Structure formats: C-alpha cells, structure tokens
C-alpha cells in the first residue's frame, strides 16, 4: 500500500473517532478518557468475527457494529451515573480496565474466539480481513475507498445530529446543566446518549482501523490512544464539526515531520508519545476551546 494511502486511511479513521469524542467533550462538555476503549472493542470485535469465526468482511463489520452498540450502552451507563470530576476519572479507569481485559483475555493455549481465549492477549490477532473483502484485498485504493465510504456516511449522520435540535440541547446542557434540569430536560439521559453515540463512532473507527492495519494488539485500546484522540480534538476545535477532522489530519502528519529529520528506531515510539503529549499540553494552555464547559458566563473570573 502506498504511504499516502496509509496516511489517508489513518486520518479518516482517527477523524471519525475524534468526531465521536467531540460529541461528548465538545458538545456536552464532559471530558471522556474512554474513547480508546470503544476503539479497541470495535477493532477486536471485527478481528474476532473475521478471524476466529471466518466471517466475510462485511458480515464481520455488521456483527462488530452490533457489539459496538451493546458496548456503547455500557459507556452510556457510566455517563448517566457519574458527572464532572468522577466522570473524568471513571472513564480513565474504565479505559484501563478494558485494556487490561483485552490484554489478559487469554490463557495462552486455547483457540482464538473461545471463551478461554477471547483476544489472544498480548500476542494480538493477525490476518484481519480487509475491506471490502479478502478477494479484493489486493487493491489498496479499494480499501481506502471503502473506509472513506463508511466514514462519510457516518459523518453525514453525525453532522445531522450535531446541527439538529438535539445537538443544540447538548450544548445547552453544557452551558448550564442546572437550568436544563429545572426546565425538565433529562440531562443525564442526554449525556448518556451523547456518550453512546461517541462510543459507537469510536468503535466503528476501530473496526475500520482493524481492516486497514490487518494486525491488532491490546495497544489499540491503550490510554495513550485516548490522549491521542483528545489531542486530535483540541488541535482542531472540540465543539465544531470540521475541527476534529482537521485536527486528526494534522496529528497524523506530525510524525512525518519527525521522519523528515531522520529520527528512527526505538526512540521514535517514545518521541511520538512525547510529541503528542507536548502538543496536547500546549493546546490546553493556549486554546482549550470546547473544553471550557460552561461557555462564557458574564462576570465569571478565574479562581484566586
């Protein structure tokens, strides 16, 4: 596969996930650290259906979508039950837990897909079927096209949701949950709904990633990745539609800059994380954007 197509695929996939996260972070105003958990679950679901049960690619995608929906209810439950501080840490905890389960979900010997070896643990799953199908897998641009197709459909739906009265309600909840409650809005339900959609989009992005990378391991659900998605989000603007997409494109291209300077080897992995962390840090200080969850209330000053 040409390098450009590889980057394009990554940008599309991460963009979708970041957009999903923006619903939770930018529009509802709750910082979720569990997007990578959804991403990982989607990727693993697709891989398991495709490899262990040998389903054809589209069937695996459909089945994985089902798993994604089910998993999203879990995230929705957390969003409904926790708020503010606790939600942030709770999602981080949830993410670490899911990553841990993916890492440990094996006894080392059983067949993949069986109850004793759901995920192949640290060894990961290889030979994940590409989209649109194994037969057509030889054409990399076809894969990119398929990914783009799925992403665009989901993006259109997301845009519709964001621009609809429901999206406006989410932003209202972000501005003043107290007022929303006192006007009869089901604040916690709507937050849960936003978290569910965010999770679903993240999972679908994971599915697409698995079909692109052909090999996945538990790092696909790591907390680093959650931080990474957050960076994508903030770089472009958390509460807008194009922001997360542009931000993802930017972040995907960042390591290419490193490559230009001839940095390679084991240090690249560390430097990449350092790079993302540094960018995130800088963004948070310079333009927190949609993370300011209460809009601009008159007379509100910084704390002492």
């Amino acid at each position, binding site marked *: 596969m040409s390098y450009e197509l590889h980057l394009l695929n990554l940008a599309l996939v991460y963009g979708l996930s970041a957009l999903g996260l923006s619903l939770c972070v930018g529009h509802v105003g709750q910082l979720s650290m569990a997007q990578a958990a959804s991403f990982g679950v989607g990727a693993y679901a697709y891989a398991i259906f495709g490899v262990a049960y040998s389903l054809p690619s589209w069937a695996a995608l459909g089945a994985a979508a089902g798993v994604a929906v089910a998993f999203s209810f879990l995230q929705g439950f957390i969003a409904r039950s926790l708020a503010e501080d606790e939600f942030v840490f709770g999602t981080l905890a949830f993410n670490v837990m899911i990553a841990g389960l993916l890492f440990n979900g094996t006894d080392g010997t059983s067949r993949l897909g069986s109850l004793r070896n759901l995920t192949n643990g640290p060894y990961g799953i290889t030979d994940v079927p590409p989209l649109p199908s194994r037969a057509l897998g030889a054409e990399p641009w076809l894969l990119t096209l398929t990914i783009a197709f799925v992403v665009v459909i989901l993006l259109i*739906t997301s*845009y*519709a*949701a964001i*621009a*609809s*009265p*429901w999206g*406006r*309600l989410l*932003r*209202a909840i*972000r*501005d*003043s949950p*107290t*007022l*929303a*409650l*006192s*006007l*009869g*809005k*089901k*604040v916690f*339900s*709507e937050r849960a*709904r936003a978290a569910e959609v965010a999770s679903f989009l993240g999972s679908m992005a994971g599915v697409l990633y698995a079909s692109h990378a052909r090999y996945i391991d538990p790092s696909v659900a790591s907390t680093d990745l959650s931080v990474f998605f957050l960076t994508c989000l903030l770089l472009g603007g958390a509460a807008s539609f194009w922001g997360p997409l542009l931000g993802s494109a930017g972040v995907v291209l960042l390591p290419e800059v490193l490559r230009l300077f001839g940095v390679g080897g084991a240090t690249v992995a560390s430097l990449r994380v350092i790079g993302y962390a540094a960018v995130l840090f800088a963004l948070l200080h310079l333009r927190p954007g949609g993370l300011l969850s*209460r*809009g*601009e*209330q*008159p*007379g509100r*000053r910084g704390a*002492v």
Partner: protein
Amino acid sequence: MSSFLNGGCPPAVLRGLGLKKTFGSHVVFESLDIELRPGELVLLRGENGAGKTTLIDLLTGNQRADSGRLEILQEDGTTRVVDARRADPPTLARLGIVKCWQRPELFWSHSVRDNLRIASSGSEDSALRVLAQAVRFSKPGRVPATEEPDPYLAEFGLESLVERKVTALSFGQSRRVSLALSAIVGTRALLLDEPLASLDREGTKAVNQLLGQLVEEKKRAVLVVEHALNERLLAGFDYRVLELRSRRLERKEGGEPTSSGVGSPVDLWTGTLEGGTGLRRYGPVEPMGDGGFLLRFRSAPPEGSRPLLSLERLRVQRGAWELFSPQRGQGDGLSMAIHSGDVAVLLARNGWGKSSLAKVIAGDLPATAGQVLLNGQPTLDLPSWARRRQGLLYTETANALFGNLSVAETLRLKVGSESLDGLRLAPHREVRTLSGGERQRLALHCALNAADSRLLVLDEPFNGLDRETVARWLELFEAAALQGKAILICLPA
C-alpha cells in the same frame, strides 16, 4: 387547610402536604401544608432563615423533603402525586412546576431566541425522532424555519433582543429572559425567588408586567418570595400573603407591607443609624454619580488624620461596561476618603457597581484606572490576602464562608479563637447546614471580631434582617468605630 373558602374558587394546582425538612438537628418545618391556585399571586414572606427558599426548593424538587408529598393537578383533570422525598427538578418541570432562580441562569453560549427554543422543544427521547429532526433541516448549521413561532417573544418584550447572545444582556434583560424560560415550561405553577431583586426602575416595571400577564392572562399559579423592601413594588397586584413564622405558614391579610418604607433611602438609613446609636451624620451627603450617595457617621469628633482608605479617580471594568465613567455621569472616576472612626454608608441602586467597587478595594478585581490607597500607601497589585494582612477586611456577606467547615473551625480560621462570644450557634455544626440568616450572623461576627483589622468593607450585610437585628449590629459597629476602626457599608437604595 385546603378548602374552597370563597365560592367559585378554582381547585389548587399545586399542593404540598405534610412537608418536613430538617438539616441535622435544625428543623425547618415539621409538617407544612401549602397550596397554590391558578390565576393567583402568592407572596411568601418570612424572616431570613425561616425557610422560604427551602420551601420553594421542596416544591420544585431542588431539595428533598424528609417526608411529605406533592399533588399536581394536570390539565386533563387528573392529579399526579409525587413523593417529596424523591422529587427532582426534571420530574416536576415536566408536570409544569418550575422555579426561577434569583441569579439568572441561562444557556450562556446561545442567543435569546435559541434559549427560548431550547426551553420549548420537547425532550428528544427517541433516536428516531432525533433522526427525523436531523433529516428535516435544509441549510447546514441552521435550525429549520418551520419550527413554531418563538413563544413569549412579544409578551415579554424580548423582540429587540432576539438575536443577541445572552452574555451581552444587561442584568434586567437576563432576568426577563430567565422568567420567560420558566414561563414556557412552568405551565401550572411558577415559583420565583426574589424576581424583583437588584432591578432598576425599568426592569421592575418590565417584571411587574410579566407577572401580571402570567397571573391574570395565563392564569398560572405564581408564588413570589420577596424582601420586605421590595414588597411595595407589588402594590398594583391583588395577592395573597403567606408568612413563614416559627415553622408554620400563616395567612396574612391584604397586601400591606409590614415595614413602612417611606421617605428616601438617605433619610431612611440616616434615621436607622442615628436612631439606635450614638452615631451622627457629619459632612454633606456626597453624590457618587449615577444615583449613588456616600453618607458618613461618627460618634466621636473627627480628627484631622490621614484617611484610612482613599480612592482616587477609580475606574473599573465590569463585563462589557466601564463603571464610574463619564458615560455614567461620573466624570473622572470615583474618589472618596474614609477616616478612622467613620461609619460610612454607600447607598446605590442595584447594578450601580457596589459589589465591584468593594471587590476592587479588596483586591479581587483590578481597576482599569485610578488608585486605591490604604493608609496613604498605594495598593497596586496587592492580592486580597496581602491587603487583609494590612488590615483591610472585606466581607461579601453572601459568599463569606466555607460550607464544609464547622462553625468552630471557621472561627478559628477567620477570627483566631474559637470563643462563641454571644453567637448563638452550635460550634460543631457545619456551615452548609446553617440557614441564610445564621450564616449572615456568623459572617458578620467574624468580620467584627477578627484580629488586626482596621478597615471593614461590608457588602450588603443587612439583606433580609429585621429592624432589631440591624439595630444591634449597628451598635456593634459604633463600638468598633470608637476603637478606631473604619467601616464602609454598601447598601441598596
């Protein structure tokens, strides 16, 4: 308690029965009954700390009762019963019972029109409805024009404000929008916590108009909590009075306010200060521009000493406006001087900038121009803790305490000793369980007894206190002034 006393009286739309609320060992009500009827304005009176806001909260689900139930009459004639121990705001709002907060709560990043629309749109429960709505729109980013006409725009006089972001509204306008939002959802009963507070003449007129429409035209049940001072503003209405006294609700006759607020604020406060103490006004009444006045009182003759506090041509930015500016007729900025032994009273309407001024003096807010001098020394960028150590003590009475600390811990922190000294409060009680009145007493006690304080700046310390309590505090202020302290009190005109 519930009976159709007059013939033809419509059935109650909201009933609270057997409401009980305690905070630890402090009982607010034992078993309270209240009912509100459509087309009726009820004024809820009571001393500070009697539980007026608590009662409103219980009726709207913002606080949970220890026992009791709420009965709401629906439009179709059925009655919904809600357990007051488990009520919450969304449930009651969906039944048409809404509270309007004193401090306007709005959806800050939206326009007035969007605020109204958000309030009136139903909750998007099903995913299909969301999808259907999503598919209906034509232009990206715009909500379709086929939505219903914006409710209450005309009636509440908000047409001119419709596209404005709510952050650009004045206080009075925000209050009106806030009321509109509550009116949209509160189809059965509206409970308003001090809707007239901090409004200027124009704002008061507008709010009164809204109240009239709500009660007379739309036949809502409206309950209003208001301070004695503002009661006279309701004079045009025909309202029922309920008074919360000693944990019981009593009916009072007619709309006669208990306090006789005759005369101008200057005379009123001069009379209050001179009446109960040895303080006497001296010097002229200094106009502070834009309707504000500074009065000075002393009991001992003035010495020719350097002023303790001196403000020179002060200008302050508040939100989008500049205070103490030529636009407000205050020329060069605000200037004033206060000497040791003075009890100075700054009288100004709400919105004038008393709190902002107090914060600038205290060091919480920067001034855009001018100087604040303590003992002749410019304070420049000194933070509030440094000014406190120089003897300036600022008490923003509404916000002066720490909820999680006990009374004893608060005293130790602010006064330096745990002696209660006449303060009738249990030392182990947590501050957040105290009523508003008790918190005020604690805050003022801390202010007066704190060590190493030369200048006290008190922001509206007497809100809601009755005559005798105010007089007692003034005596204590006089004593402090005789010891050489200076006191600046900001009061609403």
